């Protein structure tokens, strides 16, 4: 392949140069293409039944007694008692807490009311496969971007706890998609943890909205900052009351 001139591949198949199979077929480009497709089909097959769900993001490194772990667990419990499915990244920390909230709700279930499911969209990392024990239904992705598409795709509300770069990435991605009308602008976005997010949002105000006007000022109405699970729950309850179940994927 190496000595074929660029742009010379636009020829009939009979005249194409002979290509050696790689040692391991899984590392070939066509196979990777199929793997990506496989993840999309699997992911949508998996998510196809979800009607109303809330996705939690946050650090994987918070221990059980951390304030944000406790808040996340509480929010997971409150929402799943209302029948919302809780989607997380399936990892430890905040994700585990969200899934664990569903578990708590199920333990306290007295009548036959519908409790949301606890769902984990997991990532397979080279050095760890980390799935928390409170996930009821899980799917593992190899590719970050397929996982992110599934995440950005499935929920009617997104909740961001304090977290690292992964959490930030998801936050920017979802507001960017809303900004460009690629996903429903009614999607609710809640940031939890004033101490953590405030400085970043100040920077947003100062540099992005006022000083340079890189993004339209209306973007700031797309997200809300609160401090506790109960505040978040109150907002979600109010906003989601009129939201149609998300069936159109």
């Amino acid at each position, binding site marked *: 392949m190496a000595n074929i001139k*660029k*742009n010379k591949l636009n020829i009939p198949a009979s005249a194409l140069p002979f290509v050696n199979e790689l040692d391991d077929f899984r590392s070939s*480009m066509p196979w990777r*293409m199929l793997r*990506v*497709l496989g993840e*999309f*089909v699997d992911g*949508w*097959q998996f998510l*196809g*039944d979800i*009607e109303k769900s809330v996705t939690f993001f946050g*650090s994987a*490194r*918070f221990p059980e007694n951390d304030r944000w772990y406790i808040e996340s667990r509480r929010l997971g419990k409150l929402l799943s008692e209302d029948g919302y499915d809780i989607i997380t990244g399936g990892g430890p920390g905040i994700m585990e807490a969200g899934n664990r909230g569903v578990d708590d709700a199920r333990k306290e279930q007295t009548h036959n009311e519908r409790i949301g499911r606890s769902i984990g969209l997991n*990532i397979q*990392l*080279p*050095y760890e496969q980390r799935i928390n024990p409170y996930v009821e239904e899980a799917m593992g992705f190899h590719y*970050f*971007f397929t996982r*992110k*598409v599934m995440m*950005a795709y499935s929920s009617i509300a997104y909740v961001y706890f*304090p*977290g*690292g*770069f*992964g*959490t*930030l*990435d998801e936050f*920017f*991605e979802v*507001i*960017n*998609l809303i*900004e*460009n*009308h*690629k996903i429903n602008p009614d999607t609710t976005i809640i940031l939890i943890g004033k*101490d*953590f997010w405030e*400085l*970043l949002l100040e*920077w947003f105000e*100062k*540099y*992005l909205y006022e000083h*340079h*006007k*890189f*993004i339209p000022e209306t*973007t700031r109405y797309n997200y809300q900052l609160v401090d506790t699970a109960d505040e978040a729950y109150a907002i979600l309850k109010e906003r989601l009351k009129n939201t149609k179940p998300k*069936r*159109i*994927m």
Partner: protein
Amino acid sequence: MTFASKNHKQSTVSRERDFYLCYSYNMQGNGRQSMNKPSYDLPVFEEPQDFRSSMHWRIFRIMAELMDGWQFLADFRNNVAIFGSGNIDPNHAWCKEAEKLGRLLTEEGFDVVTGGGPGIMEAANRGATTAENEVRGKSVGLNIKLGRKVRANPYIEKSTAFHYFFVRNLMMNYTGRAYVYFPGGLGTLDNLTAIITLIQTKKISIKVPIILISHEFWDPVARWIVEKMLNKYNAISKEDVDLYVIVDTAEEAMEYIRKSPIRNEF
């Protein structure tokens, strides 16, 4: 299976409603596992009015975009990706810097890949076309289709356009030898955090430099990352804050870019 009922008239329901029914038949009391059946037992499925809105078609569309993207990018193996606001005055100092960086890069044989839009992207593409060498790198644009328009600046020599943001992001993240972020809005931030996450989780090589231009703009964010994320919340590791560097000029950025190894990810 109750889906294709008599009351359902194609002509009277809106397309949206039509769609809703198509994809919700398995929810109507049949239970969640109802799709796990032999094919002769599956419910009758009606095509939506516009085949392009069906789920199947969208998967094919994603596949087509991925193929187009990789097919296109295979020719640009030695590229540097430049990001930045599309909504900035072309006479701003940052735009001048982007133009200079574009020129320096193509002079040394790197291809310049941008999002193909206005602002910083346009400045970088313009700079890339002004190098006076006989053999120079190309000015490449990976556009996004927003609504009905494709926004492409006039200085792109090779371009392709994507409907899906994530395919465009993926293509950007796939081959770049180095990543340069000028001040920018949500798209820039989205891509920056995506690439840091990929490096942090070792999905791509740790030797790919991430260069942020302008201390004035990026320093507050970097300070927030160190103060809150790292020190107070422990949400990242100490070595993660070394994954990016902040500089002020195109020349400083070039030093990091020259040191970067070629990506062999294809």
